[in-house]
């Protein structure tokens, strides 16, 4: 939808914005300024998702810890002990948990944002706001779980006597990369989901497949040296390797991470454009 919001210069109530509504054609601008104006709504939607997530559960927020923790236990038993997958000399539980942490954030954010528009169709058909708010809030709401699960990692590091180096300062960057990846894919999926409900059934397969394509149970050092940079085309490979490097000081953040970052930027830009293009029909189709 094309709206131009400008102040009227000549009239007394010049603060009043002038909104022009007309059919949009071709390329549309991303209207990120409009998004900024609605930041409070974004905050409230995140807050709603966080508040509601563990309502009427017995374990409550403990789920945020249990999910990655149980996954770690299972991985350690099957991949670490039985399959004896090498973990670059790091105790396997820490090795797996460090990777599961961003992975869970990503997988949750992807699922939630992919279904977010359909889940909020009531809002789409009744109120105006920049539609981007919905998938973004769905992604960011996962950060609270991430924060809780991160505390467990600190306990694990303490237990195994691992002291992170200065590299830990780069962790926010890799966290951002994980969020950007989830948002990029989430934008594509949520917009597609409005038209094709098939997407809802695709998401579980996608995350499962992606889990194995990401070096979580294994190390990316298993991939032959000359292919390793290309492995970064899976942005989560870059994220996971980055996390291991930042927290455990193992592995390297060479070309693989750069490839991942570039891949995410392209995917995100494409997702934003596709989302904005489809946005005009959301209310009619959802």
């Amino acid at each position, binding site marked *: *939808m094309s*709206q131009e919001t400008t102040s*009227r210069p000549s*009239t007394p*109530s010049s603060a*009043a*914005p*002038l*909104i*022009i*509504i*007309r*059919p*949009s054609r071709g390329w549309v601008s991303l209207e990120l300024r409009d998004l900024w104006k609605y930041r*409070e*709504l974004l*905050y*409230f*939607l995140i*807050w*709603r998702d966080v*508040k*509601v997530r563990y*309502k*009427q559960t017995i374990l409550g927020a403990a789920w945020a810890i249990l999910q990655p923790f149980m996954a770690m236990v299972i991985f350690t038993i099957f991949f670490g002990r039985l399959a004896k997958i090498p973990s670059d000399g790091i105790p396997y539980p820490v090795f797996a948990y460090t990777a599961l942490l961003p992975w869970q954030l990503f997988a949750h954010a992807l699922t939630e944002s992919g279904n977010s528009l359909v889940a*909020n169709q*009531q*809002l*789409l*058909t*009744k*109120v*105006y*706001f920049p539609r981007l708010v919905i998938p973004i809030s769905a992604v960011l709401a996962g950060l609270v779980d991430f924060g809780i699960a991160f505390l467990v990692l600190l306990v694990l590091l303490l237990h195994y006597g691992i002291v992170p180096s200065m590299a830990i300062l780069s962790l926010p960057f890799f966290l951002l990369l994980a969020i950007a990846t989830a948002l990029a894919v989430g934008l594509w999926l949520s917009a597609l989901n*409005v*038209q*094709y*409900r*098939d997407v809802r059934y695709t998401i579980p397969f996608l995350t499962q497949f992606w889990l194995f394509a990401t070096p979580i149970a294994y190390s990316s050092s298993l991939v032959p040296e000359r292919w390793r940079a290309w492995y970064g085309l899976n942005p989560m490979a870059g994220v996971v390797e980055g996390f291991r490097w930042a927290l455990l000081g193992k592995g390297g953040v060479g070309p693989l991470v750069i490839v991942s970052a570039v891949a995410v930027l392209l995917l995100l830009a494409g997702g934003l454009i596709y989302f904005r293009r489809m946005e*005009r*029909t959301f*209310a*009619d*189709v*959802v």
Partner: protein
Amino acid sequence: MRDLAVRVENLGKRYRIGGRFRYRALRDTLTEAIYFPFRRLISTPRSAPGQPADEKAYIWALRGVSFEIKQGEVVGIIGRNGAGKTTLLKILSRITEPTEGEVKICGRVGSLLEVGTGFHPELTGRENIYLNGAILGMKKAEIDRKFDEIVTFAEVEKFIDTPVKHYSSGMYVRLAFAVAAHLEPEILLVDEVLAVGDAAFQKKCLGKMGDVAKAGRTVLVVSHNMGMVRFLCQRSILLADGEMIMEGRPEQVIAHYLSSCSSETAEGEIEWPKGEQAPGDDSMRLRSIRLVGPLGTTQGIFGLDQPIRVEITYRILKPVRGMRFVLGLLNQEGILAFASTNQNLRDEGVLYPGCYRTCCVIPEKLLNRGRYVVRLSAGIPGVKKLMPGQELISFAVEDSGTHGSYFPESWPGVLAPLLTWEADQRIEAEGED
């Protein structure tokens, strides 16, 4: 745009038939993609560029609508269901995009297409006020300031920290409206949200709406409530089949609207042969309404001394429990003469799919002379609305002499019932004797 708040020019919105209700599955697109190369071979000469290939696959929900609203004006939009009222409001609120035309809006817009949008059952009343307020476009500081006022207005002080899923439906609706009522945009777009709550609360809402209008804000309201349009609005716009038929003073427009209802259905019968377009929803749809006179024939004109049998034939598509109809009669000025419901019938339990008929008899010697419009709604009280109230058929009452006066004078009143007067008695003698 100096003193204009809204300017609408040649606005149009086209929907793909079914597109509003149906979503596409991937397989549809795949099928189309496979057929696409052969489309030229199969189809007859292609239509003009820019035109959809098959004009029949689309409907114009709105077309060629132009009007202006001055700042501070209160305008009511009326029309039958499907006339394009809600589509217009959705375009003005930027929820959906027009297919053609342009709208200029000058000022901060607040739109209320529904009360309680985004309410979450698990959250408390307090939390929902903030969430809903933010969704409607209020700033947090603004909600903080108005919080106490909202709670008092909604009369839910005691339950403000209870999840709204434990609220009664009345409390829920009151809270939802209270938040909406405290929205203070320069231009307010409202869609029939007043049809909520009990009578006392509705009155309160109407008062609040009156305040908003008096405060000099621009209001555009879509309503079926003719009384409200007359009470609140300075101007009214009539839409029919997506086009603007008339605009002017509310009284004139309402009279025109009600008489246009009648010209379409002069014969005292209205039928919806095509199920999809009949009023109702996916569990109940009307089939026909017939006005039957004492001889058992369909009539469009009744005498004052004739009872009027309103036969409503409808189809139940899914099992429905506790449904009731509410039948109201509006006079030509849009004033509701009375409303009646088949509440007692609804206690009979579940209606299973099939065709049903219910009848309401309006007794003789009750109505005044003039035209009346039958307005019908259906719903399960407190659960679901199956069909919003809409004016469906009209009839005329003629004749003189039986409503108490033997003179052919016009008689005041919405109704003119024949009431019992006891014979004149001389209680006390006066004067001579």
